[in-house]
């Protein structure tokens, strides 16, 4: 039974097979149950077949959005048809909110750094942010509506309020963990306050901070979806909420997979950039 031990060394094929096993089981089980349900009810909607999902997805990705006047007809290229489709418009709307929110997380990093380096700033913010971090932003929606309306701003603020405290506190802890000897050494070599903060501490923690933002992308996405489901006129979650109303699972499942793919790509890109920028950084 040595293959179950810590020192087991599965071969390439074994690793490949094992890692795809749950995917295959899930997919097979899904289509088995879907097929049985379709046999029993030809209009079955809860578990669409692969054909229906492909059709649902190609309709979403290639047909012009319904509000649009018919300008793109059969002649245009695949790309331009995609660019006038419902899927692209939704992705664009959600993507814009997503990117703005992630961009707004960077000031949070700087705040965390300054809180750790400058005791007065730390004293001013730390206790409040520790408290704020524990507030479940979603339950205070009516107050958010007063402050930020129900248009774009409130959706972005919901994300920022939900995720920024985590990032601030994480940056704070990472900055604190830089050995004080380094800071003392920096001062003896004549560094100023800001060169200590930015050129010694910040440089060291940056890869870990990027990693922490990367791990929080899922939270960003959750808040974004929550915001779009509450009130919106476009976006990926808006579409899913609408489709749910008539059990459009044939489009919802591909949408969910599309979102997963996009998230995976962003995650992958951030990871790659992080490694390129900081080749000395080894943590996963």
């Amino acid at each position, binding site marked *: 039974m040595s293959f179950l031990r810590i020192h087991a060394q599965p071969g390439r094929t074994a690793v490949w097979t094992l890692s795809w096993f749950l995917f295959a089981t899930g997919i097979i089980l899904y289509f088995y*149950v879907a097929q049985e349900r379709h046999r029993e009810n030809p209009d079955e*909607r*809860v578990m669409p077949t692969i054909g229906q999902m492909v059709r649902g997805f190609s309709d979403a990705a290639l047909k012009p959005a319904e509000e649009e006047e018919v300008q793109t007809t059969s002649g245009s290229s695949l790309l331009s048809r995609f660019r006038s489709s419902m899927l692209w418009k939704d992705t664009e709307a959600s993507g814009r909110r997503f990117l703005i929110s992630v961009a707004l997380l960077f000031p949070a990093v700087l705040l965390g750094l300054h809180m750790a380096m400058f005791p007065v700033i730390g004293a001013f913010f730390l206790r409040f942010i520790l408290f704020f971090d524990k507030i479940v932003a979603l339950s205070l929606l009516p107050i958010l509506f007063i402050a930020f309306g129900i248009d774009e701003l409130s959706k972005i603020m919901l994300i920022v309020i939900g995720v920024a405290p985590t990032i601030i506190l994480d940056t704070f802890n990472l900055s604190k963990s830089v050995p004080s000897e380094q800071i003392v050494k920096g001062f003896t070599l004549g560094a100023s306050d800001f060169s200590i903060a930015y050129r010694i501490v910040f440089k060291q923690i940056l890869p870990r901070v990027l990693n922490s933002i990367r791990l929080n992308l899922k939270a960003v996405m959750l808040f974004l979806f929550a915001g779009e489901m509450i009130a919106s006129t476009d976006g990926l979650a*808006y579409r899913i909420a609408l489709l749910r*109303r008539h059990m459009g699972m044939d489009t919802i499942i591909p949408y969910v997979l599309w979102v997963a793919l996009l998230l995976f790509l962003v995650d992958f890109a951030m990871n790659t950039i992080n490694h390129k920028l900081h080749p000395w950084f080894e943590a996963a």
Partner: protein
Amino acid sequence: MLAFLTNRFRINPKSLTLPCGRGPVMIALMIALMGSAPAATPSFTVGWSVYVGWNPYYYMAKSGILRKWADKYGINIRVQRFDYAPSLDAFVAKNIDACAMTNMEALDMPAAAGVDTTAVIVGDYSNGNDAVIVRQNLTLAQIPGKQVMLVEKTVSQYLFERAMAINGLGAQIRRVHYLNTSDSDIASAFLTNPDKPVVVTWKPLVSQILKAKDVKVVFNSSQIPGEILDLLVVRSEVLNRADGSGQKFAKAVTGAWYELLKLMSTAGPGADKVLAGIAEASQDSLASYKEQLSTTHMFYTPQAALDIASSPDLKKTMDLVRQFCFQHGLLGEKTKSVDDVAVQFPGGAVLGKPDRIRLRFSTTYMQLAAQGKL
């Protein structure tokens, strides 16, 4: 995907017998999941969600009235509260046997998804519960070009578009910008955003919004009486079970329903006690529940419900509703013709293709109740 599957399995192992009844593996799994085999008494589940016309289901179960009727027919009936959308999902996924829903959702959710559905009880119609509310004395004609907050593709949108059509503004509907807003937040979202001029929603949210200054109702469901019907629907296959238990279930629920409605409508302190018990279903006060009842046309007697269910108006209503559903794609992308999801009325008349009947209005059980034969 996997989580979705296991979830399904756990919620109701019983339903597995339908899609995968043959496999011995599945049977083993089923037994493993269920622990021990249940007693032979057939059990049924009724799903309901908070709404003035459906809250009685809560009290029906709590007061023991339902128990009494279920015992009479030798079955078990469980009543379970859901949020509205999940209750529809559960019904379409066949996790529950009966569900309270409107005529519109009965058509565009289960019926359009191929789940043959029978409306057993016509409980009430919205007689002012649903309303179009505006700020600053706006008129319907001024709405095009402005933002309207509502839960898209629901009865709210139906009400709004009917309001426009009745007032000769049908052609303007496409200039209205809908802002899809979740019903759990729509009241606070409207009240805190003065730049949003119009909202369409239902009670008790309407009452809450009307407490604000400078808002008024420009259209409500009492102007389209009988079009937004609240039903109790049962899956037809449950009703047609060979052992007759499904029919017993329908009889028991109908019996319990009209017993409770009689208690509700008999004047006196007894009724107030019952109404307070029902109001508890939505954490409402007696006064607030009574206010909601005042804009709900309850069919307190089986005869009243029979009258509307067998009147020709029902056919006109359902035609409006199915055209609305079809135009808004609610019957599904695959449905190429409005006739593909056909509706059958008491007496046998059919709207749509006779071989594709998916929604049936049945008066059988209300009839039995009216004749006192339950």
